[in-house]
């Protein structure tokens, strides 16, 4: 192979190349930047756009505002997804539940809703043998009903008891949330609503005490991120370092 000797570049040629490359960069920048900026501002994605990790959905629950005797969030979830039970509390599905927490030392009582915490490192996803438990790019943890074999290992692994196994035949299912006997399910963060561009979940929408705030944890300008930055909040079982998408205040 013979060595090729490059002809020495003239000053003009270098300048022309620099001009072209810089020009293209500037043109591209001015064309794309507003689009990107607007995209970030809007948060929403179109229906045919793939889910991306630019967004991470989360929810802030203020236990101070949550009323003891109110379970509107639970009711809204049950109605939206047709979770009406068979009057068998031990086996009926429950995606969200109201929990009363009493401090053993002080006697202080708090009431709060508890559901799938949509962990960044979900143990249910780790243990699922078939990969049916999975985390979407946008942080929502779901179950693929088609490959869930119903082993319930994810239920053993979940530190929040957030998942339910469908123990019996279902009737009158909601078209937007198909469920299946013999598989495991949990709160979906209203994934179908969010995908269609709605801005909040059924539970947060139903909360008349404004104790639930849904939003994008990745967007520093979202109301959720701002509140989380300004006010203290905690994760449940923070010791496990699962980084849940659900955070609590007033605990």
């Amino acid at each position: 192979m013979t060595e090729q000797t490059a002809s020495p570049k003239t000053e003009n040629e270098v300048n022309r190349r620099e001009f072209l490359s810089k020009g293209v960069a500037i043109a591209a920048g001015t064309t794309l930047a507003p689009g990107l900026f607007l995209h970030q501002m809007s948060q929403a994605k179109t229906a045919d756009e793939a889910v991306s990790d630019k967004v991470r959905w989360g929810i802030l629950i203020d236990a101070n505002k949550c009323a003891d005797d109110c379970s509107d969030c639970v009711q809204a979830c049950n109605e939206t997804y047709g979770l009406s039970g068979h009057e068998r509390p031990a086996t009926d599905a429950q995606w969200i539940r109201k929990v009363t927490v009493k401090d053993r030392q002080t006697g202080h009582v708090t009431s709060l809703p508890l559901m799938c915490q949509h962990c960044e490192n979900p143990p249910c996803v780790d243990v699922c043998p078939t990969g049916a438990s999975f985390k979407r790019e946008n942080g929502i943890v779901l179950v693929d009903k088609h490959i869930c074999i119903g082993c319930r290992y994810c239920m053993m692994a979940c530190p929040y008891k957030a998942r339910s196994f469908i123990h019996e035949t279902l009737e009158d299912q909601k078209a937007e949330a198909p469920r299946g006997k013999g598989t495991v399910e949990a709160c979906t963060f209203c994934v179908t609503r969010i995908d269609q561009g709605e801005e909040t979940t059924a539970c947060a929408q139903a909360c008349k005490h404004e104790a639930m705030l849904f939003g994008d944890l990745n967007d520093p300008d979202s109301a959720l991120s701002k509140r989380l930055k300004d006010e203290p909040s905690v994760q449940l079982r923070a010791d496990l370092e699962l980084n849940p998408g659900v955070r609590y205040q007033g605990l």
Partner: protein
Amino acid sequence: MRRMTYSEIEGKGIGFYLILGVLGAIILMGLGAVYHMEHEGHYVTGMSNQVVWGLPHIFAIFLIVAASGVLNIASIGTVFRKAIYKPLGRLSALMAITLLLGGLMILVLDLGHPDRLIIAMTSYNFKSIFAWNIILYNGFIAIVGVYLWFMMERRMQKYYPYAGFVAFIWRLILTTGTGSIFGFLVAREAYDAAILAPLFIVLSFSIGLAAFILYLMAAYQLTNRPLGDALLMKLKNLLAVFVGAVFYFVAIYHLTNLYITEQHGFESFILSDGGIYTGLFWIGYMLLGTAVPVFLLYCRKMSEMRMPIIAASVLVLVGGFSLLYVIIIGGQAYPLEIFPGKEVSSAFFDGVVNPYTPSIWEFMLGIAGVSVALIATILATRVLPFMPKSLADKDVDPHAA
């Protein structure tokens, strides 16, 4: 030492067909129970959203753990070259496969979707220890199958020590995997402990050996083949050592928890005020499954008698079953600590001990799995020469070990 000859069991008498008939009936009833559970849904069982694994899982894990443990008999002959154990190698390896099949059958038929077995076999999440277990179980059957073939096929005999070694290593990994199903669970107080893997391994030694002794004694009695004391005494002494080893690991598991303040709630639940779980631990496991068998096996006055060996073996199985019940059900019954240091209540059983009463359907599925293991062993010994014609003292040569 004479050359060992093996033969099929005769399997002609009325007793033989009666045993097959009873086992077959139990299996049919178990399949009926499965149909009922799958058709109606799991609400007909005692399992719930709180206690998600129940009696079927105890039977399944009991059989799977016993399966790997029963292979020890063959391993002692092949890997550790104790000549007296060699004649038992074929039966040991056969039972390793049949017990595993029985256990897996229960596990699969309890799934919410047994029809999706093909998905479990083809769609893997390699971070899941459960997925690894599926590979370990299938691999175990294949490897022990080859090991058996090499043992039984004259041309392949020179290779069987290698197959035996691979099978021995594989079985250790397999039981590590079974224990890690619980060891790798961060959420619950009872689990999340590395010691569960070796605990399951020693438990496999004891219940595998106890199951083997019982089958061996029954089979030789029913087929009128001689079974000498020399071999039985060896097996019996080994059983006592294994029972002691299980006790050691159980003791360390609980002592460690007792040292850690945050585990005190769980420990007092299991050891003192857990009702059925406390009873099963102290009476089922500690008294019946550990203290009494060790006494029966070591007591000099009874050392030459067979009844105490049978009783001790049965009790070791009872103890192992009780221990698994405490670990698997007790671990789920104890409420999850979502809010440490707080009192919790809800309409979804938060903060309370989760109730569990096994249903008849689960029990039927469980004993069907045991029956599958037994019937497969019996039929295999009927068609192929797994059992030595004689295990009389003069034929097994105790001094060669």
